[in-house]
């Protein structure tokens, strides 16, 4: 029996793709600029203890593109509607990359339905003087290589991405990622002013070899979010949930478990 469903749902008038599986406290996973992709092995692991909810953002992949979608703030407000409509509370919010930016923006706006926040290689702020690759000026192959620490994994992902049926979704994801993050590049200059309002237990999980948002970003977020904790995963690029899924899931469970004990 499948451990999750994968079907459309309409929230705030917008039809999106939603993957959901497991039971326990709700864990809402917000994907990055590459789209929701597949139900990851780490999600299957987490679904043994949590109700894992992994939507595809409006404007990405199989989800509709609503006329109101212009900014990350629009997505943050959409997910506040999402939490209301699904009547979720005590939510462990997890966001990767662009999805981390959405999660941080959401938590600043309204954390009343949240129990914790986890950012993975998150965008949303700018740190001066940190060398970062520019995926918008890279070839498709190079873009994938820059995501991973392990070159063999990168080549395997490149090989599996060369399928014509994936092209429409890939183009759609890139166009929407550009719309949301081109300028100011990957951040909102206003966000850092208000990150101190996040009072939730917050975990910052970063790949040690993240070339998009190097670990300096994790420590910058740590300074801005009171009480937040950094975990740097070795031999890992921009996507710990993909490249080091077991370590990622273990860190997340430990964090949430520890938080429950503390509470």
């Amino acid at each position, binding site marked *: 029996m499948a451990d999750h469903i994968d079907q459309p749902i309409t929230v705030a008038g917008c039809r999106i793709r939603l993957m959901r599986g497991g039971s326990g406290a709700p864990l809402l996973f917000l994907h990055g600029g590459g789209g929701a992709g597949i139900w990851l092995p780490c999600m299957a692991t987490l679904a043994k203890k949590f109700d894992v909810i992994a939507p595809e953002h409006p404007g990405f992949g199989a989800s509709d593109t609503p006329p109101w979608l212009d900014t990350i703030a629009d997505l943050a407000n959409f997910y506040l509607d999402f939490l209301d409509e699904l009547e979720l509370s005590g939510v462990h919010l997890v966001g990767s990359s662009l999805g981390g930016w959405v999660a941080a923006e959401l938590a600043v706006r309204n954390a009343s339905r949240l129990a914790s926040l986890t950012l993975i290689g998150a965008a949303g702020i700018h740190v001066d003087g940190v060398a970062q690759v520019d995926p918008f000026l890279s*070839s498709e192959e190079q873009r994938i290589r820059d995501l991973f620490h392990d070159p063999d994994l990168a080549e395997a992902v490149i090989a599996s991405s060369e399928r014509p049926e994936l092209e429409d979704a890939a*183009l759609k994801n*890139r166009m929407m990622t*550009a*719309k949301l993050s*081109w*300028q100011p590049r990957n951040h909102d200059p206003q966000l850092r002013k208000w990150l101190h309002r996040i009072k939730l237990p917050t975990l910052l999980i970063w790949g040690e070899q993240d070339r998009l948002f190097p670990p300096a970003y994790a420590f910058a977020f740590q300074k801005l979010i009171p009480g937040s904790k950094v975990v740097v995963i070795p031999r890992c690029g921009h996507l710990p949930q993909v490249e080091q899924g077991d370590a990622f899931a273990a860190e997340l469970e430990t964090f949430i478990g520890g938080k429950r004990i503390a509470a």
Partner: protein
Amino acid sequence: MKIFNFHLMPYRHVDLDAIGRNGSAWVTFSNRHYDAQKGAGLYHEYLDQMELADRLGFDGVCLNEHHQTAYGMMPIPGVLAGALARSVKRAKLAVLGRALPLVNNPLVVAEEYAILDNLTRGRLIAGFVRGIGAEYHAMGINPAYSQERYAEAHDLIVRAWTEPGPFAYSGKHYQFRYVNPWPRPYQTPHPPIWIPSQGSGSTIRWAARMRYTYCQTLSPIAAVARFFQMYRDEAEKAGYQASPDQLAWSNTIYVAETDEKAVREARPHLEALMNYFLKMPTEMLLPPGYTDAASMKRVRAAKVTGKPQSIDDVIKNGVVIVGSPGTVREKLAEYQDLAGFNTSLTKTQFGTLPDDMARANMTAIAEEVLPHFRTRLPQGARREAAE
């Protein structure tokens, strides 16, 4: 036919190997390769060429706009147009930039063009473009908003020129409490608006509906003919018959005594333009959102960028005309009839072509070609045959 002298103002002293190593002359090609002594010399050389074009009898001089590139040194074409506004006495002055989405205040374009129109006492032709994809990397403007910003900026500028101010404007991308630019344009209701494009269907449709002159950039003549036919079809749908004056072909012409000599002389300079100055990766040319997904897929499938082109290719495809005076006259007439345009936007300097050769080329065109085309209109028979 009207023949304009179209300049890109390339940094022709560039180290081509350095461009080759970088993979492009755009955006990431370091400006440490720019030598201000040489650059200053080039600005004067090129402006002198434009003034010569006026004296030689070209119908217009034509500038463009690109940013952060050795391909062209005119990021702010209005400055150079200002330098020419008083020294070019007779010819039209066409600015085939202003990339509207790249500016955060479109009223500066309304102001700049209005000043130029006054300075030239109504000889300005006002170009409105989106800029190529590389510009969006260079200027920090979101390519996903390119079309929206273009449409909104265009509407605002035309209103600023034609509606008495002050009035308030509130759009999605631009908002102003007061729109009231001084000066107003010299021409009534405003300078002619020309729309250069690489052949986007939606741009052609829009230009035809607005009755704006459409300028086709760097394309094989067969494609040019197809795009111009699209324009005429769209005009018909909009209820009028397009005049050949509404169609301009952007080309390169080089004339020497014989075909063989012309090709030999032009080859290194034209191939430098095609294979170095113009070279850029697809990611730079077409950032996400710059065109719709369907166009993006067509381009990716065609893999248009990157393959080296020889002068023989671009002559054969009718991208350029190179040859003896007789050959050039024959080809230009053939292409005019095939595509039905009545303006030729002609690069007489291109790539690394030095000053003496550029001036000799301009003089030869003025003496051997211009007089034969002054009153020449497209002959329909050839076009109908081609269709």
